[in-house]
């Protein structure tokens, strides 16, 4: 690959228009990418971000406007053609083959052959050489699925760069990486930038935009709002441009929760599971949100799974509204009035092909049993009520849920559990993968549910978010509950210190409370 001259426009789009039926997804959008820059593309869901990317990478053809690659007008018939011309894409879900070797993933479709037979040794040697340039020294003969998502992402990047070499599109590459892995990935991206590639970076994490990107283009409602250097911009500026208004999370006064909370609704004592989470004791009160912080893999999700009976606890007791309860499977949890919005809503949460209405009533129907079917009028009434209460934006309630945006899908799942009138609601990463506007709405909804007297247990990786709705925060480290923060300690700094294990003021969990 010859080095590209930095600063020159490598990919330009002018006046791009794309309509779907009546809806104008992109309205005369301009975009330009320079060689040797990381260009962040931001916008809420529905702003036209993914439509623009699909046009730049050849997945869609524009209805109007011009694309120029290194100054020459181009049209792409598909992603493969765009890739041949120099534009490589790495998607959020790694689009490689988990069942094949790393080397084969790098060379699939262009393996060197002799007399029709693949020259495997040559491929393996080249693959090792290619990955060494990315700081990866791994056995390229091992299956891709043997490696972490971060390594898989880097292999995907290496493949895209090898095949294209001018433009690299990174679509939410960090969504399932932990902090350390994100750092590694960014090092790789900076290396590619230095080699003169133009890099388009799409993410929901604004702090990562500031950390990595040089310029930013912001879209809103299918229009370009701005393209600017990030130097001199603040997060608030960017958010304001994305939303056209100021959104800040409403921080509730610290220390308030302790005094106003009501009676305990759910109390777990000594709940634990070998290989899952060390025994913990925790009680959730009426009108209280308990936030959970900790790194990926610290046992946060495992804690929620134990509470909801997805994994069976080895020991411990559960008391719901003063009466002992047995929770060994999710059906018992639902019967006890628990609700659970899982982390991966596409896999564990929504029924994509079922309608909004069916998705909302399904938990209530399961709780009622087979013989008390909700009739259609009741279903419509329920779906309507929760769609309105949660502001679920769907053209009609009979459309399949998979067609909704991530934020709306999340609200459908929330509505599903609210319909059973839960005593206790567990939310695992309720704002993951949804845009800033919907994000703020989910946070507001959580706060409203708390004010209405519900007990909630909310897991989140975003500290600003955790402190925005939590009365108390429990901190997980190495599959153990290591701290419970209350009052003024419910603040990002204190949580970070507790995660790192350097918080002197934190109330350590008394070991005696665990059997």
């Amino acid at each position: 690959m010859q080095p590209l001259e930095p600063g020159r426009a490598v990919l330009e789009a002018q006046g791009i228009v794309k309509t779907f039926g009546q809806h104008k997804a992109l309205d005369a959008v301009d975009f330009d990418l320079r060689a040797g820059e990381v260009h962040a593309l931001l916008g809420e869901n529905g702003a036209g971000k993914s439509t623009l990317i699909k046009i730049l990478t050849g997945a869609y053809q524009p209805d109007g406007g011009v694309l120029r690659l290194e100054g020459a007008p181009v049209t792409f018939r598909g992603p493969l053609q765009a890739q041949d011309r120099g534009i490589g894409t790495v998607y959020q879900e790694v689009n490689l083959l988990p069942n094949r070797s790393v080397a084969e993933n790098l060379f699939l479709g262009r393996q060197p052959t002799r007399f029709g037979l693949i020259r495997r040794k040559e491929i393996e040697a080249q693959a090792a050489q290619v990955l060494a340039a990315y700081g990866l020294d791994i056995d390229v003969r091992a299956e891709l699925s043997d490696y972490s998502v971060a390594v898989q992402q880097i292999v995907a990047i290496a493949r895209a760069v090898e095949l294209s070499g001018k433009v690299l599109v990174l679509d939410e590459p960090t969504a399932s990486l932990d902090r350390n892995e994100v750092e590694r990935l960014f090092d790789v991206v900076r290396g590619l930038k230095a080699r003169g590639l133009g890099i388009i970076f799409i993410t929901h994490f604004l702090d990562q935009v500031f950390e990595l990107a040089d310029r930013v283009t912001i879209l809103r409602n299918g229009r370009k709002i701005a393209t600017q250097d990030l130097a001199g911009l603040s997060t608030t500026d960017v958010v304001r441009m994305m939303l056209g208004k100021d959104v800040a999370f409403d921080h509730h006064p610290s220390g308030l929760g302790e005094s106003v909370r009501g009676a305990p609704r759910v109390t777990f004592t000594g709940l634990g599971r070998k290989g899952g989470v060390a025994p913990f004791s925790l009680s959730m009160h009426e009108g209280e949100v308990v936030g959970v912080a900790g790194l990926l893999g610290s046992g946060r999700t495992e804690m929620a799974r134990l509470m909801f009976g997805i994994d069976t606890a080895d020991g411990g007791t559960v008391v719901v509204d003063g009466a002992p309860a047995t929770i060994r499977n999710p059906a018992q949890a639902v019967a006890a009035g628990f609700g659970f919005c899982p982390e991966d809503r596409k896999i564990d949460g929504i029924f994509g092909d079922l309608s909004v209405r069916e998705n909302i009533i399904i938990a209530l129907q399961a709780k009622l049993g087979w013989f008390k079917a909700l009739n259609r009028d009741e279903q419509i009434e329920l779906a309507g009520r929760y769609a309105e209460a949660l502001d679920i934006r769907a053209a009609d309630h009979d459309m399949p849920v998979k067609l909704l945006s991530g934020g709306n899908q999340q609200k459908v799942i929330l509505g599903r559990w609210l319909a059973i009138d839960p005593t206790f609601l567990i939310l695992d990463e309720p704002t993951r993968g949804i845009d800033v506007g919907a994000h703020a709405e989910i946070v507001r909804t959580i706060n409203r549910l708390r004010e209405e007297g519900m007990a909630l247990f909310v897991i989140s990786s975003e500290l600003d978010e955790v402190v925005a709705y939590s009365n108390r925060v429990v901190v997980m480290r190495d599959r153990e509950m290591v701290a419970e923060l209350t009052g003024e300690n419910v603040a990002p700094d204190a949580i970070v210190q507790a995660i790192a294990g350097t918080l002197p003021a934190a109330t350590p969990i008394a070991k005696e409370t665990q059997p």
Partner: protein
Amino acid sequence: MNRSLRPLLATTAIFLLAYLLAVLQFPGMVSTRVLGNFLTDNAFLGIAAVGMTFVILSGGIDLSVGAVIGFTTVLIAVLVMWLGLHPLAAFAVALIVAAGFGAAMGAAIHYLRVPSFIVTLAGMFLARGAASVLSPDSIGIKHDFYTAVSRSYILLPGGGRLTVIGLVMLAVFLFGIVLAHRTRFGSAVYALGGSETSAALMGVPVARTTILIYTLSSTLAGLAGVVFSLYTSAGYSLSALGVELDAIAAVVIGGTLLTGGYGFVAGTFIGVMLQGLVQTYIVFDGTLSSWWTKIVIGALLFMFILLQRLIFTAAPRRKAAPGQRKTLWTA
């Protein structure tokens, strides 16, 4: 060690153990005669199972295999006995018809987006029905060529006979192994079994590969039909009933994951041999009903599906804790 090798090693170990036990009971089983018969008696199944391996590796299934074998035997008998064609010409016609049939099924699976189970089920009825229309009765084949083939073999030390059809099967397995592991087509088959979406985004020609996979499977089923016709010297529309299921069993027992993406053609060979071993044991024993073959195969199949489940769910999960990950960074 490569995870997908484990079922293959398990199969090999079980085969060797079973063979050892059988030999301890019937020392007569350790002879080249038995080995020769092994290969000859299972030749048609082995050939069909090679095609099935590719289909299953790609994440599909081919239920039409037995029916294609049956149809081919009838077609050859009709061409040779009624129309007076030379058997070699009849074989060529039969293979071309089978290839076209497979290509049509592959095209239907890809372009109409119908699951392979349904398309090949329809193909099964179609081929079986067409065979009955050609001739509902069994047609005996009497031809000098057939006599010549049945009399040609390589004499092994110890008196065993490596017959023509046994050799054909061995050749097909060698061809299958090279095709699966050393060619771009083979890579594409595994890629489809891993993830069709990813494969398409990585530039695998999905349509061509799918059509070729089913063409290969039907052509090999056609070749199995040729071998079956040589083996039985007859064409009968109801022959090779259920062979597709034996082939699927051989593939799965041979360590190929039923959901695609993982497996080896060589494993299928051992799967076929294991079935042959059970049959031979029953012949040697003389008191057991031949249905015991099915029972043993059923038990083995179940065991292997359990084994695969254990091996592939014990695989490192994507969200494993950082310490459990096999991440080796330089830097």
